[in-house]
């Protein structure tokens, strides 16, 4: 198939960027979206044009690096699918495709489609962990955890930290990402001792990093390639109220 691409090109963080038009010819329906971009880049290199810079790593939908907004939707039109797992059969011959980087103040553009997502790492550093004593490995099942709690925690742990929630949010908020981490840890006994501190530290860090506030549009859940649910945000809010109640413990 032949496609017309409109790709965001930007030389560096401070340079102005703009959409450039490219033709993607001889694209097979079996290719992934990133493979299609590889073909386009191959062509650009042959022509002596600087190839399109984009982030990618595992190409199997788990690393969360392939951050692209395709036709106005983070990770493209398929539900629960990352860009690398999006296949060209979901497009039609002759389609025009707009490819843009994540856009949020907390995610400055490094080059073309690559953004700096360190802000998410800073959120994890602020509280997305449990403090444990190293030493002997504890016995399996020494701490009993109910199945529903374990399931909820594991559902939240599905987050791959790609930042699609931030890219989709009209407020540039990282609430879904933060809520997933807060829920994952708060549902387990190992996470409870630091639960109050965690939710306070992580929400405070969100503001510092320049993310917006959640106003419950639910765009994030719709864009999430891992199906992280906004009910985790309600859980974060409950955890926050509990922390508020504890007089700064």
């Amino acid at each position, binding site marked *: 198939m032949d496609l017309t691409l409109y790709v965001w090109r930007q030389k560096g963080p401070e340079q102005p960027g703009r959409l450039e038009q490219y033709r993607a010819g001889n694209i097979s329906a079996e290719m992934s979206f990133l493979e299609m971009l590889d073909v386009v880049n191959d062509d650009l290199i042959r022509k002596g044009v600087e190839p399109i810079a984009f982030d990618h790593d595992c190409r199997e939908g788990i690393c969360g690096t392939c951050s692209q907004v395709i036709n*106005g939707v983070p990770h493209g039109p398929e539900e629960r699918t990352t860009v690398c797992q999006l296949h060209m059969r979901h497009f039609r011959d002759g389609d025009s495709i707009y490819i843009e980087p994540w856009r*949020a103040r907390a995610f400055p553009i490094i080059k073309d489609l690559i953004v700096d997502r360190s802000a998410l790492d800073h959120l994890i550093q602020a509280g997305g962990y449990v403090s444990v004593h190293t030493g002997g490995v504890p016995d399996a099942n020494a701490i009993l955890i109910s199945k529903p709690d374990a399931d909820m925690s594991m559902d939240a742990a599905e987050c791959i930290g790609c930042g699609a929630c931030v890219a989709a949010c009209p407020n540039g908020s990282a609430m879904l990402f933060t809520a997933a981490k807060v829920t994952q840890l708060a549902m387990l006994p190992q996470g409870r001792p630091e639960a109050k501190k965690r939710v306070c530290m992580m929400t405070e860090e969100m503001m510092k990093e320049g993310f917006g*506030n959640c106003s419950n549009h639910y765009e994030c859940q719709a864009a999430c390639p891992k199906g992280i649910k906004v009910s985790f945000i309600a859980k974060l809010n409950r*955890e926050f109220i509990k922390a508020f109640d504890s007089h700064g413990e």
Partner: protein
Amino acid sequence: MAVTGQVMILFVLIHVLGNSTLFVGGLNAYAEKLRSIPPLVWATRIVMLAMLIVHVYLSIRLTLENNRANPELYAVKKHLKATFASKNMIWTGLVIGAFLVYHLLHFTIHVINPEMSASMNVDALGRPDVSAMVIANFQTFSISLIYIAAMIALLLHLAHGIQSSFQTLGLNNDRMLPLIIKAGSIVAVILFMGYISIPAIIFLELIKG
């Protein structure tokens, strides 16, 4: 914001119930009863004013912070879930705020159309004639239109605001979320119908003064 919003939703619910006494000819009696308990009236006014100030302050701060966090630079952006109501909360809120000032000047302080005000006219029992004031005013097309337009803003504001307030307070889970979204919209529509029924019915001359 969620807490102040929910308190104001409670007020809006009680207000529409009070208004509906017009249909059974009890508005003057209801108004008289309210006036006879000044502590209740003043406590409500003070609480509502406090709620309003906090709500407006937080909403302006929220909007400014959110605009800064997302300058909306996408050339193409498709919203999958966000609605017209959820994206325009600040504007529907400002319309409601402006209407609130108009409404208080009109029916409470009687600065607008004072000749028709209840403080100037009394009914057969010597009570301020609130009912006649309402009916006389809503026979004017422009006044009815202002009230109905403001209620459209209220409808949109609550269609998002009710469900959003539950989510913010954490009173939500996977099973409840779709129900709360639906119930919030239904409550917003019921309130809208309740409020516009008065100017609409009066203007259509179904109730005569």
